[in-house]
């Protein structure tokens, strides 16, 4: 495996009484993509800010491309691009002027900065707006300009804090494609996101952060597997109470089935799905129940995420949150 380009060891950070980070460890191999998932306030942004040299940790150490982020921030800054949680672009400059300014501050000549800015404006589909004041941009356009600013110096290490928040579906797909191409050519990427789909799509490695700690890490597949066995996904036909299906099958599962009454859907966590399928069919037949569809699948990253971070506030704990007994973090 390639040398790690980002290493964080036992990072801790407090803001007054609030513990933002409580011993975060990370490692990203060169050229890899690490996705940080976690609820609001989990510590994702604080971690990114420490790695991008903006914030000093209270304890622990971190290195980017071998440079210590607190002892040699200047060397780190020459290697990184950062797009923070809020679009940090000047509303009273045009898109082009914003990018040329950032390019010049990275040390490009005026000519280089102009060419590079023009290319990025085309790539991020801002060509029609490049000459307009950013004040007139939509939120999604500002966001794309901010990402363009982070790419200006073609940094080998890229930090993106919720890069697609506020983008429309088309902008999101375009950015995913661009990031895919950049990482395919060797850019290392650390991204935080609230979107499980985004982490699954882009990241080879995922860490789930909650309350300032890494509570799970692995590939999307590994995290799903650790959330406990398989999922049996049954669709009850219209007019048939899905709770009856759930009751008939409950004892086959490793945890209580989740019932979505409105959709007529029953999700049952099972240990070895293939082996119990005949028994499922037998019980349904015995109870005189029908199913419109039946699927056996791996848990989604979303189910894994909820299993690790606990059920959403205010919802009864019948969801996948209690999927597997003994799952770390399940409460």
């Amino acid at each position, binding site marked *: 495996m390639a040398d790690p380009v980002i290493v964080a060891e036992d990072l801790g950070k407090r803001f007054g009484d609030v513990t933002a980070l409580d011993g975060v460890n990370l490692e990203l191999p060169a050229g890899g993509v690490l996705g940080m998932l976690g609820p609001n306030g989990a510590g994702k942004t604080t971690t990114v800010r420490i790695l991008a*040299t*903006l*914030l000093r940790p209270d304890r622990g150490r971190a290195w980017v491309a071998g440079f210590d982020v607190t002892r040699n921030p200047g060397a780190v800054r020459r290697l990184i691009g*950062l797009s923070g949680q*809020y679009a940090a672009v000047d509303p009273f400059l045009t898109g082009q002027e914003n990018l040329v*300014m950032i*390019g010049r*501050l990275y040390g490009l000549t005026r000519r280089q900065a102009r060419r590079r800015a023009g290319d*990025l404006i085309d790539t991020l589909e801002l060509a029609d707006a490049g000459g307009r004041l950013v004040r007139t941009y939509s939120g999604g356009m500002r966001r794309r300009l901010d990402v363009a600013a982070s790419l200006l110096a073609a940094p080998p290490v890229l930090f993106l804090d919720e890069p697609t928040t506020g983008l429309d579906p088309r902008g999101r797909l375009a950015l995913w494609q*661009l990031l895919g191409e950049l990482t395919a050519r060797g850019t290392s990427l650390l991204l935080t996101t609230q979107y499980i789909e985004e982490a699954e799509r882009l990241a080879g490695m995922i860490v789930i952060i909650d309350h300032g700690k890494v509570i799970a890490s692995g590939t999307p597949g590994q995290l799903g597997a650790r959330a406990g066995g398989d999922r049996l996904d049954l669709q009850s036909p219209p007019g048939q109470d899905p709770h009856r299906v759930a009751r008939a099958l409950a004892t086959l599962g490793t945890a209580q089935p989740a019932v979505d009454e409105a959709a007529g859907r029953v999700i049952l966590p099972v240990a070895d799905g293939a082996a119990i399928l005949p028994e499922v069919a037998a019980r349904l037949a015995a109870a005189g129940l029908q199913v419109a569809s039946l699927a056996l699948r791996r848990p989604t990253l979303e189910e894994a995420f909820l299993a690790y971070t606990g059920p959403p506030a205010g919802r009864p704990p019948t969801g996948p949150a209690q999927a597997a007994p003994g799952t770390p973090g399940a409460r």
Partner: protein
Amino acid sequence: MSTVTATEADARPGRPVPVLTSTAVITARNLRRLVRVPTLLVFATVQPVLFVLLFTYAFGGAIHAPGVPHYIDYLLPGLLVLAIGFGASQTGVAIAEDLATGMIDRFRSLPITAAAVLAGRVAADALRNLFVVALMIAVGAAVGFRFHAGPVAALAAVALAVVTGVAFSWLNLLLGLAVRDPESAGLAGLFPVIILFFTSSALVPVATMPGWLQAFAKANPITVITGALRALCLGGPTTRPVLEAIFSLAGLLAVTVPAAIASYRHAAST
């Protein structure tokens, strides 16, 4: 994507960016804002002109300042300090805005020195102040103001006014970084200027004030700076008032420059 690849090769930064380059780039950014942000434009154009006309015509009939043919001769040096002081409050607002919107985070993630971001703002302010001073002298001249001590002293007066602006800009950077909220930064910048202006010799001679106020007015930095500007504009002994003003401004800079840089470095880490 192919176009991005083409420019990637020469986009990678090698050496640290020279501080003069980064300062110049930030200065250019702030100059663009000066002409595009409506509030900033008003602070730099309408307000200075209004100050000259309003104070001249509202007070000029009642106040007879000693030793000058027209009140405007006595008044203009103080008004320069007032306009520069009011304008500088916008520098505190701007740096607080940059903090709030993440611009400071962006700048701090770049391979440039912290001082460049602040120096680039102060440099843009200095150019604005040069324009403001010229504008006020021109409008003042139209209503009777004249330099009475020759061209060298006149240029020295302009230079002293600009240096005063530099000190005010650093002070407001410090205030903006300390209070962090744009609206509070604006008030924090304006309030001291208003109080110090009306308790100084800017509008009326200190000798006309009640005794208890005279002691304060004499030590008031706006009195000191206005006194030096007035000496350079009107003539008379200049060495002592100018040295006093230079010492006051040097003292202010000695405190605010390192404090503002330190405060900038720590601004986002709390």
